[in-house]
């Protein structure tokens, strides 16, 4: 039978207190010592080896020593022990039946130097940082590789003005754009722009009487849309959040550009008539050949900003 916590402890002559703790050998899982403490406060706790225990009863432990001899046993040095709640000892419960209370196991000799433990804890952090820090930049650069692509400023032929029959009416021009992304085979993607042959009034609304300049990423002038050329091309991307808008009849506003996503409405001059769009439609560089062929530079601007910010 194992000594239980709170059991009375009797010496050969008299009762001296109770079992306040038990000490367990972490390897054999056997109780090696009992800790005897007094009933009253202030009484010292002494550790008594199991060899000194004569018999273990249901609620009491009989020692071989007399109460006077008990003084010779060492005092419990609590610092040198940890409780079984703080240390993982497999299968301890299978062998131990002393609950409830504090079951102690000795802290190994090598573990008693606190400063060294702090050093090792910091050392772990240092090594972790040494591994992580040199990786941060390569990983970030690795993931950022495709984020910023140079602009493609080639002229693309997209159709002929013969398709436009009426002034100030938006006409959609669909075209294929050659597109090569990273390792992928070159592909053609469908794109579209809206072109109108603007009356002087609408043209004035688009250009405000001034020529419109387009620059490349380095600030070099690419092209100037003359304010007196009646053909105006708008990027197919809605400046609100990037959906594709349409030329539609509106009950109140008449013929307008309407985006089905968040219901932004623009007039033929690209001006916002209604809805959440932050800026007018985006005119693109356009040139019309003598035979009516239309060429544009395909550009895309960031949606949702008041200012035009080119991204493609």
């Amino acid at each position, binding site marked *: 039978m194992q000594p239980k916590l709170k059991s009375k402890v009797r010496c050969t002559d008299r009762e001296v207190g109770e079992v306040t703790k038990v000490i367990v050998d972490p390897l054999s899982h056997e109780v090696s010592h009992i800790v005897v403490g007094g009933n009253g406060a202030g009484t010292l706790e002494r550790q008594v080896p199991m060899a000194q225990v004569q018999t273990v009863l249901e609620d009491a432990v009989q020692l071989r020593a007399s109460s006077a001899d008990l003084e010779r046993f060492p005092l419990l040095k609590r610092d040198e022990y940890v409780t079984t709640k703080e240390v993982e000892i497999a299968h301890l419960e299978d062998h131990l039946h002393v609950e409830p209370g504090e079951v102690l196991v000795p802290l190994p000799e090598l573990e008693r130097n606190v400063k060294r433990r702090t050093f090792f804890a910091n050392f772990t952090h240092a090594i972790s940082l040494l591994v992580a820090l040199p990786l941060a930049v390569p990983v970030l650069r690795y993931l950022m590789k495709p*984020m910023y692509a140079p602009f493609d400023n080639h002229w693309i032929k997209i159709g002929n003005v013969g398709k436009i029959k009426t002034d100030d009416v938006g006409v959609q021009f669909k075209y294929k754009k050659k597109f090569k*992304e990273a390792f992928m*085979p070159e592909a053609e993607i469908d794109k579209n722009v809206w072109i109108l042959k603007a009356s002087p009034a609408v043209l004035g609304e688009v250009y405000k009487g001034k020529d419109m300049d387009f620059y490349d990423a380095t600030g070099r002038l690419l092209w100037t849309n003359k304010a007196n050329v009646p053909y105006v091309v708008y990027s197919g991307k809605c400046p609100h959040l990037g*959906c594709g808008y349409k030329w539609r009849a509106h009950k109140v506003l008449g013929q307008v550009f309407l985006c089905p996503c968040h219901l932004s409405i623009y007039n033929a001059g690209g001006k916002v008539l209604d809805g*959440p769009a*932050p800026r007018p439609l985006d005119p693109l560089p356009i040139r019309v050949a003598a035979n009516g062929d239309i060429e544009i530079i395909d550009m895309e601007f960031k949606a*949702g900003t008041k200012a035009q910010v080119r991204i493609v």
Partner: protein
Amino acid sequence: MNGQPTAIEKIVAFVDERVGLKTLQAKMLNEPVPGGSRWAYVFGSVLLFIFIMQAATGILLMFYYVPSADHAYASTQYIIHEVDYGWFLLSYHFWGSSAMVVMVFAHMSQVFLWGAYKKPREMVWLVGLALFGIVMGFGFTGYLLPWDQRAYWATTVGVEIMDKTPIVGDFMARFLKGGPTPGQMTLSRFFVIHVMILPAALMGLAGLHVFFFRKAGPAGPFRGSSEELKAKTDYFFPRQIWKDMVAMGAVFFTICSLAFIEPVVLLEEATPDPGEYHPEPEWYFLFLFQLLRLKIFAGEFGQFLGAIALPGAFMALLAALPFIDRSPERNIFKRPIALVGWIIVMISIALFTVSAIINREFLD
């Protein structure tokens, strides 16, 4: 019966002796439920069930799906039209994601109304909010993978919205898209996020969620004296598990029915020209979509307000909730602000969703 243990019993005993299987099982099942089992407590278990099914169907879909801009659409069509039961597994996965969102709303509402986010369960609530974000992330990233028009445009608009975050928005949007516009890099990134990063994050956080929940213990009903609660208390097994299982069965049946009645049909392959398609997000993002149509969220600042600030502030409010609302009162009928707040949020979401649906008709 001769009293001798069977071979299986011996194996179980062998394993149990070494790893403490029975203790583990007992610990898992013998959780006291204060005030007894209830149907209101099934949502967490149901979410776990839905996630396991999403993982299983998702893994099966990956046997045929190819995450590349020139094959994603064709491989998804192949799953739908050629592979035996492919249409069913894909449709189950699709409707399962909707079920997940519905159940997350139910779960959060239950916890909110029962006042179960209050001390000492703040950590459970916070991890739960992170899980809510992950579920939304799953929906958003999964939507792109079939690479049809719906996928392409929902992503285009969704990422443009993220772009409106001050200072870091442009970087975040480009980082996520892997370039200025959606393409192969976007598909690769969304695929990795959808099948690796989010599942790992969800498993880790869900484990933490349950661990914290077990540490704090179930909250129990919000009224009744401690004697009444004690008298009605039972263990997680069997009564709560039985209710959970019935709910899982019902959810499974519902998802299967939806997969049969409304199987997934793809639109045209993704392209930057929307054609006649009117872009629209998945139904659980419709209210946000409709919100951004409002005049007060017009312009650059308005857009930031509607797309970033408002949802951000709402999430921040939810996160701060257990720290603002410190009163120990859990009875929802004695927390008028909480009750009215919940009703307003639910009605607003419902109204915005319905008006987005009504708006569809005017566009055709």
